[in-house]
């Protein structure tokens, strides 16, 4: 199987996954969405009637008038067809696919726009800022620590690192976040407990305030993640250090430091790149809980709020965006990995 066939196969897979997630999401949320829409139509019809000051002789007549209004409204926006009706379903899927995510039910963006795409776009940079920064830091620490302990496999440092990795990966990151707030916001007043900056975004000092507020969540993510990371790197480095060409380099008199940190790390790179990319994509799901704990104003907090309010358009929108990011990352990683390591394409 050639490389291009591999790429095509993966692309088809990606589209199928995207489509499947979308159909599943809409199928699951469809009934609830319809119910909420109909309720809001009824609410507005009653509200309008109360404002209009029309008198009805009997309550039954009043009810009939409301029912008529509601029925007309439902017909105009096409709600008379159920959500699984082919026309509406295809319509919804198409709309989401081209990122026309519609309007939210309750939540608005900071600028006041009810459009889901506006809201998500406003929050996305903050999520990306927090999670790319933390991934970069974790990766750098993990690479060097992993190479360091990998070179001394079986030493005290190696065992310490393995133990730490096992422990830290059992801790829920959001729980560690709560402990950090208790330690550094309540006991020692070093960081604020809520990560939403108080300065308005227009203020020039906003960016510094934002970075200061970002520190505690950042430290939390790094603290929980770097141990397991170093452990992964160590696994690959130990494998590479056992290869013959490393032994050859040793006999050639290349300094040990250069062998470990340059040659061994470089050769262990392809699988490491894969894990980095996948963990980045995976950490975006973790954003939901971490952002909820720290109240970091990103997509995760938005998702958390949307669940609370049952704001379905936003839930569908973020699920889709997260899926797109996740799947694109998996896709690109697969391609890069296959490019570096031809064995993958066959298996």
């Amino acid at each position, binding site marked *: 199987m050639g490389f291009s066939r591999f790429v095509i196969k993966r692309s088809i*897979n*990606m589209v*199928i*996954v995207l489509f*499947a*997630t979308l159909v*599943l*999401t809409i199928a*699951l*949320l469809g*009934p*609830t969405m319809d119910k909420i829409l109909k309720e809001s139509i009824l609410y507005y019809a009653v509200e309008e009637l109360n404002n209009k000051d029309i008198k009805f002789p009997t309550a039954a007549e009043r009810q009939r008038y409301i029912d008529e209004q509601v029925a007309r409204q439902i017909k105009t926006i096409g709600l008379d067809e159920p959500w699984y009706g082919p026309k509406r379903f295809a319509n919804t899927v198409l709309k989401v696919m081209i990122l026309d995510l519609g309007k939210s039910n309750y939540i608005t963006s900071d600028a006041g726009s009810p459009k889901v795409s506006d809201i998500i776009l406003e929050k996305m940079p903050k999520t990306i800022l927090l999670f790319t920064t933390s991934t970069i830091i974790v990766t750098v620490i993990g690479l060097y620590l992993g190479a360091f302990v990998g070179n001394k496999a079986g030493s005290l440092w190696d065992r310490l690192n393995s133990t730490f990795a*096992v*422990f830290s*990966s*059992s*801790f*829920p990151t*959001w*729980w*560690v976040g*709560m*402990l950090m*707030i*208790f330690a550094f*916001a*309540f*006991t020692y007043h070093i960081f604020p*407990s*809520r990560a939403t900056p108080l300065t308005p975004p227009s203020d020039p000092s906003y960016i510094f305030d934002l970075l200061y507020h970002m520190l505690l969540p950042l430290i939390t993510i790094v603290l929980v993640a770097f141990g397991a990371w170093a452990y992964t790197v160590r*696994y690959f480095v*130990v494998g590479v250090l056992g290869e013959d060409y490393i032994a050859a380099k040793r006999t050639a008199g290349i300094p040990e430091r250069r062998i470990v940190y340059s040659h061994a790390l470089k050769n262990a790179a392809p699988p490491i790149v894969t894990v980095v990319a996948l963990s980045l994509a995976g950490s975006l*799901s*973790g954003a*939901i*809980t971490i952002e*909820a*704990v720290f109240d970091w104003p990103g997509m995760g907090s938005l*998702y*958390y709020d949307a*669940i*609370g309010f*049952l704001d379905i358009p936003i*839930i569908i929108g*973020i*699920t889709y965006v*997260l*899926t797109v990011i*996740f*799947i694109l990352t*998996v896709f690109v990683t697969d391609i890069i990995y296959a490019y570096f390591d031809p064995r993958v394409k066959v298996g």
Partner: protein
Amino acid sequence: MSVTEVLSRSDIIRQFKHSKSGLAGVFLLLALVLMSVYAAVAVPFESLRQWNNPVFWVDLPQSAAPAWTNFGFGPKNTEHVVLRMEDASVSVSTEGGVRTVTHSYSLNYNYDTYPDDFMLIYAARYGSTQPALQVDVLRPDGNEFRIYFASLPPSQQGDNEFSARVFSTDRAVSTELRKYLGSFSYTPDHTRPQVMMFSDAVENRVLKGNYVIKETFYLFDPADSVVNSGFILGGKVYGIIGTDDLRRDLSVGILWGAPVALFIGLTVAIAGVIIGLIYGVIAGYKGNRTDEGLMRINDIFYSLPTLPLLIILSVTIGRNIFLITGFLVIFGWVGMAKISRSLALQIKNLQYVEAAKLMGQSDFKIISKHIIPQLLPLTFASIAISVPSAILGEATLSFLGLSDPSIPTWGQILHDANTAGAASRGLWWWIVPPGLMIALTGLAFVLIGNALDVIVNPRSRKR
């Protein structure tokens, strides 16, 4: 990598006994199982069912720290005490047709601070003649204060049961206490009965020692009876783990969380691994089109964003604990399917499998008799390894507020803590225990799983 080397069960156990971390995991797991058994046997089942009913917990203090925090340096805070009728010593005497029923509560007050408040519980059944209630407090210095004396309200029907509470904030109590201002060498504040009752007569400080609180009922009809009595001292510390904002005893939630977490973790892991095992073996053994098709489906599941879909499933379908377990199984089989497929690919080319095929054995028989038994040790390791992610998955859902509202889970306790801002208010006893339990449960299975994996997985044995 080869799977030809078959390990017997005794081999695995013998090697496992040499793994210190594995044994540590087993001990942790045993502790958790004991906790679950203790919860089922000793903690009333009612406390589990009433977990989210605030009325059930009114007698406990709000956000009280654990009682053992008193053992450090610094002043000892008043411990919250709930004395029920079973704790009372009852004495009955009859004099001239009047029955006097006295319920005495003994209280050892050894704290450096005054209580926040106190309340007296009482209930009586009576006919047309109203009984009277008198409350006396016998202090360690010998003084006896009568803090309450009143008749119960007239019965509405012929026979009624009346139950009520006397609070330390009742005006009647402070009025009664005013009579004893003379027993003090200074002027105590009689409008704060909880302070005056526990104050030294000479110096303005806490009077430590044994107090006796006597609830005396005067009953005028032989048919009348005392139904209930009790004394609650409002303190700052309570129990082993303390209480939360809704006055719930956190130790109950933590204890009940253990069987719930073990149930979810083990069910999801076992179901997921078995489904993955069968799925992968079929794909690997059948090969060709079947393999291609099955693995494509596996790929799709592998690329689905788990948490958002779990959230949507529980938002729309339901939050019943069995449903949530089911949702977790949907995403829990994918990894095992990949591993078992690649191993089945190797096993099917071994000579004895080919021999079985030539002898005309059915595919079902070959898979169940020759391939799956080979993979069983690995299956056990995989189950142990996948328990933590199931527990963490459920905890995360609960933390997001999507848990079964009818039972306490550790994630749910943390959700409540986060909503109440427990971390920034310093209520550490509300945060540390549930998270620690999640981490330790995960750790137990990780340790067991890793130890087993090193023994049975050919890939990690090579290391």
